């Protein structure tokens, strides 16, 4: 069970310490979630939060209406694109940083991590300033005479993907740097002694051994992509809607049960992709299980 033979006093002390935080998390995280699911199983109501009858209508609509299919596919597509971009750029950056001396490495990582603390809205604003009609890119191109009218870079799928990628890149880099540093250098030396060139050493030794870091980086990036409402709205414009935008729209329209159902769809999507990532990369191999 929990512990082995502590005196009674110890166990009650532990319970007393654990109770407040546990209650807090239970009451303000777990209970609301269960409640949300409960709400998603009801119809809409104009006077109450939700209608009286239990129904699976919300989920049915999401699963059958092609509008939602489009949105879900677009969300997945955005996620995949961002994952790929983050993977390529992130792995390259991590590969460059990882072997550096600890102090340098830490400063470089700090440079990458500090921006994470700056609110996403500010970073999105920065991209608006860069990509907008009066933005840096356009001003530069116009002043050098390359173009006449402004390029419409914002309010597009590409702007969203790009903007999100730059916000999420640091998560990938940190994950992979940690994974790379955890790899005992003896493995690549062994591979080289067995006549593997750098590329093959990477493919057969380094990449597989770094897969736990890659997997956790990818999971994190995908999860955050799903939630990034502000960036999506600001850089994508009113017509570029992803799943999270629909959640927010439903809330603005006070359609709570449907918003709830959309949220759980989002969660399911996250779980499915997470499962996919873990199945493909199989990071458990490295840890000696499976």
């Amino acid at each position, binding site marked *: 069970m929990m512990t082995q033979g502590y005196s009674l006093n110890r166990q009650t002390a532990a319970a007393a310490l654990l109770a407040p935080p546990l209650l807090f998390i239970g009451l303000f995280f777990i209970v609301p979630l269960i*409640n949300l699911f409960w709400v998603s199983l009801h119809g809409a109501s104009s006077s109450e939060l939700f209608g009286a009858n239990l129904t699976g209508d919300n989920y049915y609509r999401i699963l059958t209406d092609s509008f939602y299919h489009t949105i879900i596919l677009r969300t997945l597509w955005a996620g995949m694109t961002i994952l790929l971009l983050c993977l390529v750029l992130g792995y390259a950056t991590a590969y*460059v940083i990882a072997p550096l001396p600890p102090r340098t490495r830490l400063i470089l990582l700090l440079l990458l991590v500090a921006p994470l603390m700056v609110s996403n809205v500010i970073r999105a604003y*920065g991209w608006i300033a860069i990509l907008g009609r009066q933005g840096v890119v356009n001003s530069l191109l116009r002043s050098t005479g390359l173009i006449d009218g402004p390029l419409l870079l914002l309010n597009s799928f590409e702007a969203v993907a790009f903007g999100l990628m730059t916000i999420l890149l640091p998560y990938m880099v940190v994950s992979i740097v940690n994974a790379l540093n955890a790899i005992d250098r003896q493995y690549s030396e062994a591979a080289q002694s067995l006549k593997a060139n750098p590329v093959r050493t990477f493919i057969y030794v380094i990449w597989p051994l770094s897969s736990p870091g890659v997997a956790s980086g990818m999971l994190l990036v995908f999860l955050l992509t799903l939630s990034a409402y502000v960036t999506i709205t600001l850089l994508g414009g009113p017509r570029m809607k992803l799943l999270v935008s629909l959640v927010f729209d439903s809330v603005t329209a006070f359609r709570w049960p449907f918003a709830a159902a959309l949220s759980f769809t989002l969660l399911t999507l996250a779980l499915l992709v997470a499962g996919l990532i873990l199945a493909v990369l199989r990071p458990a191999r490295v840890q000696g299980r499976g």
Partner: protein
Amino acid sequence: MRALLVALAIASYTFVLLPILIVVVTAFSASEFFAFPPKGLSLRWFEAFFASDSMRGAFARSLQIATISAVLATILGTMAALVIARRKGWIVNLVQSAFLAPLIFPAIVLGLSLLIFYKRIGGVPEFIGLIIAHSVLGLPFVVRSVTSSLLAVDPALEEAGQSLKASPVDVFRFVVMPLIWPGMLAGGIFAFILSLGELNTALFLTGPGVTTLPIEIFSYLQFQGGQLVIAAASAIQVFMIIAIVLVAERLIGLKRIVRSE
């Protein structure tokens, strides 16, 4: 090949840092509209920021919420970590997962679930509602940070304290806390910074007249377009974060900050 990797790395850094740089520089712009490079330097937009009631209010509120939720998260998180770090078993693992779950959970879903929950229990003032939400979000950072600090402390030290007639409270006060306070502080600082910049739950839990600074900036961007006061607001937040990171580095060292991610 190596050159390509380095180029990609440099590109990454540019992408990540450029937007913030541009915003901060723009905050000092003298002109009415956005132009890069700015046509002159001035502090007018900072003045405009502090002159705006809604901006000032949002800023103050953000600071208050961040402070209170960080303190709450630190207290609760430390209590939880004290138990998690010293005990074993499947229950403890389950409990630990419960505390770390908000880390990987889409904050949007958390925000919505809290909003509906608050409504169902009859309504909660936005200020309190936000503090609760941010404490939930900050808790995992504190738990993780303090747990890892505690695991580095030899349990024999606690028993030695008890053998020297220190009560459990005294053991915590004189033996454990002096050794784990950097972990507590790191977790608390992270929770603070997180709350300052937090959007996804604030989107649902703020209301008319009760907003946080990021939400205020977001509304401005959505509805009032290019006013450069936003740049000033943003710059102020960036400066705050830089200041906090520098202070934290002094107090608890670089390693811990980066590891908290």
